């Protein structure tokens, strides 16, 4: 069942233009009429199903644990949770299981792990391709059948949600999605736009050139967004004028008709045809030429969706931070960031989170002696940078190591609560899903884990995984 949402349609000019663009690519002819009809509710060529579709029969599930981790660093003792139709509907110490309702008990209940940087659930060649652009969508590459084994492993390890991206060989790889591991079903189809400034083999000048190309693409997208906004504003003024004219015409209809009939008559007598202008058609504002790539990137520039950029080396990172300063509304997220410690203060100040993939330092590697190895997450966090932990999108099955990676980060200096945040509430916040998942609260989606101990401890077992209210894994089953 595909019940997912995109971000709320704010009826923004860009959005309408985008919809129009899709209609065009779908083969609709561009006519003056269709342009004029733009203000009608935009026809959705690929209708998106209503979000939060409710299952036919109400399903109930009761969970109980000695400790419920509500959010990182905050827990409640001895709690019961009632899940109804995929949501947490009640929580309390004195809450008892309703009769006949399936009950799962454990030591700890916490939010399901979210891998903020993954390719699990995505068709393998789409994940690696370079044949994508800013407007390509990861939801088009989901492959729940080809990836079923990988996804089943994730349910066992408690990684129930993933932010996936495609086109790891492309500079800009389009719109990534947040999906549930259970069936690779999208939760948010437009989670982020992703790009990369990571080409280890390239010479420094070309590497800086990459950043500049990205900067001019962002600039182009911004210009496009401004042009669209200007057009919208002009169109509105023009429409108001037309409306005024219509009213005048209606009011003076008789007078006008008389005068027009007279003019027509005169013209006929003189053997001419009357050239008349009903409205000032020639002055109708013209929209900028629709550009799907720019429109997509403009959403990132405008801060509507976050922009995730994979960058490792200091050269690109410094340049990236410089060129993105003017884009004040853009929500930049770094991925990788092995040299990010050099810029920790600026990252903290600008509120740029970093998705770290804990890995050993390699003395001969990309960032050489500066490579902090496994200590990166802990040191960034200590300097006030928000750290997320991701499996790095190198292979689909890597996502199942997420809790191990977070634990390894703790073993190398990251605070335990920060590590838990890095794979639950953190990704939920950065990708605008905090009102749905990432913590345990009444009203939120029931994407939860029942554990035998603390979430990151190596001796803890995942007793049950609950994805959208559904028990998708139970230990021993």
């Amino acid at each position, binding site marked *: 069942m595909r019940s997912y949402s995109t971000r709320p349609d704010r009826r923004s000019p860009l959005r309408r233009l985008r919809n129009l663009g899709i209609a065009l690519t779908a083969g609709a002819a561009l006519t003056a009429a269709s342009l004029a009809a733009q203000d009608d509710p935009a026809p959705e060529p690929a209708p998106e199903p209503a979000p939060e579709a409710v299952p036919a029969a109400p399903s109930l599930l009761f969970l109980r644990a000695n400790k419920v981790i509500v959010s990182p660093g905050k827990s409640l003792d001895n709690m019961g949770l009632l899940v109804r139709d995929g949501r947490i509907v009640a929580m309390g110490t004195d809450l008892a299981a309703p009769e006949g309702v399936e009950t799962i008990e454990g030591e700890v209940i916490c939010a399901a792990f979210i891998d903020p940087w993954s390719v699990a659930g995505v068709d393998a060649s789409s994940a690696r391709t370079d044949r994508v652009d800013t407007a390509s969508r990861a939801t088009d590459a989901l492959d729940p059948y080809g990836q079923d084994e990988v996804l089943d492993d994730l349910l066992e390890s408690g990684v129930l949600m993933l932010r996936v991206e495609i086109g790891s060989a492309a500079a800009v790889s389009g719109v990534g999605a947040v999906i549930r591991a259970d069936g690779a079903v999208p939760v948010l189809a437009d989670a982020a736009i992703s790009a990369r400034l990571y080409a280890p083999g390239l010479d420094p000048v070309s590497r800086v050139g990459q950043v500049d190309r990205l900067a001019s693409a962002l600039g182009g997208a911004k210009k496009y967004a401004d042009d669209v906004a200007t057009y919208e504003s002009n169109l509105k003024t023009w429409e108001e004028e037309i409306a005024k004219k219509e009213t005048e015409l209606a009011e003076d209809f008789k007078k006008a008709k008389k005068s027009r009939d007279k003019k027509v008559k005169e013209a006929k007598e003189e053997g001419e045809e009357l050239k008349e202008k009903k409205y000032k058609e020639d002055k109708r504002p013209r929209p900028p030429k629709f550009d799907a790539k720019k429109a997509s990137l403009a959403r990132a520039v405008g801060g509507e969706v976050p922009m995730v950029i994979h960058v490792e080396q200091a050269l690109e990172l410094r340049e990236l931070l410089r060129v993105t300063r003017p884009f004040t509304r853009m929500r930049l997220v770094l991925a990788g960031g092995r040299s990010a410690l050099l810029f920790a203060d600026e990252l903290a100040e600008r509120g740029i989170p970093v998705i770290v993939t804990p890995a050993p330092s390699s003395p001969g590697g990309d960032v050489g002696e500066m490579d902090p190895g496994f200590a990166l997450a802990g040191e960034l966090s200590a300097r006030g940078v928000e750290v997320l932990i991701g499996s790095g999108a190198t292979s689909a099955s890597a996502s199942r190591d997420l809790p191990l990676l977070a634990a390894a980060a703790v073993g190398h200096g990251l605070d335990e609560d920060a590590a838990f945040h890095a794979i639950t509430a953190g990704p939920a916040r950065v990708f605008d899903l905090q009102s749905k998942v990432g913590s345990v609260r009444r009203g939120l989606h029931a994407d939860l884990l029942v554990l035998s101990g603390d979430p990151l401890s*190596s001796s803890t077992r995942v007793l049950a995984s609950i994805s959208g209210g559904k028990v998708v894994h139970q230990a021993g089953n």
Partner: protein
Amino acid sequence: MLISCLIAAAPLLGATAADDAFALRASHVHVGNGQVVLDAFVVVEDGVVKSVSNNAPRGVRVVEVDGHIAPGFISLRETLGAGSENAERTRKSTPTADLSFAFDPTSPNWKGLVSEGVTTVLLPAGNSQIAGGQAAIVSPAAGEVLKRNAVVTLGLSRAALGSSTAPTSFAGLYAHLGEQFAAAPEGSPLAEAKAGKVPVMMRAVTRSEVHRALEFAAAYGLKGAVIGAPEADDLVDELKASGLAVVFESKAAPASSKDVVKSALALSKAEVPFAFTSDAGSQGPLGMRMQAAACMRAGLDAGAALRAMTADAARIAGVDATHGTIATGRAADLVVWSGPPTDLTSRVHSVYAGGHLVHSAHAHGAHQ
């Protein structure tokens, strides 16, 4: 302060033997064989563990450590610091090769291993050789060879077959190996292996490769271990009957292998000893602990996970008399952890190799 020094008893002035002696006191001492001694003193003298007890030793400096002490981990394959000097490329078999010559103590790669608590490493021949020589046991921290000619390494996987040079088939491989064993003069490495005096480490990956290796080992009376065998869970009975152990290899990505998790659980249940390697993985020296942690999250007991990285690994490498446990007479290869040593969330506070402090997080960690 992670480590605080205090004088437990009046120092014996002029006691030369005691100059080298010290004791570590910790809330938990993991012996390595599954036993944990609470609130214990580990007394070290001349680089060797003198005693482990609950009683304060007299006349030695006591270092109070905040955490758990465990034996240094043993990786049963790590070739990163060998360049490719362990892999002879032109000959399939060099059974008398001494792989301690491939050990480069100056390689910077060893440092990372030590900081992750690995103090002993087995340096075998490359996977593409059939009888590649005799593995050495080395100490990456001390830069020393601990034992030469420790284990005979045999490559019995597809990686050992040539595409245009013989042998190109498993039939050819075993014919070649049989000839090597037949021709081995008395006292030579292969003859010693055949006599059961030196353990072997046979690399076999697929189930049929493992099956063939077990048959060969039975026919020639070989003792030791199979390295590889991710699907060992399908061959538990055969492995149990063979008396051989299993060494699981680290993986690239993901660091945890699901097959290995299943196999480790099955072997643990059947009491077939197993161990891990640290090389060939994307997680470097941590790969070994990550694989063990993956097994634990699937239900492997923490004690069994620790044994696999200490006591059992030492036994497989034939160095259990000197390494792998914290007991009287064993080398003082000790790691101080912030918590249980098998837990990935535990941090390495300090590492001692042969009684010397070789790594301290206090000196290295910028974030402390």
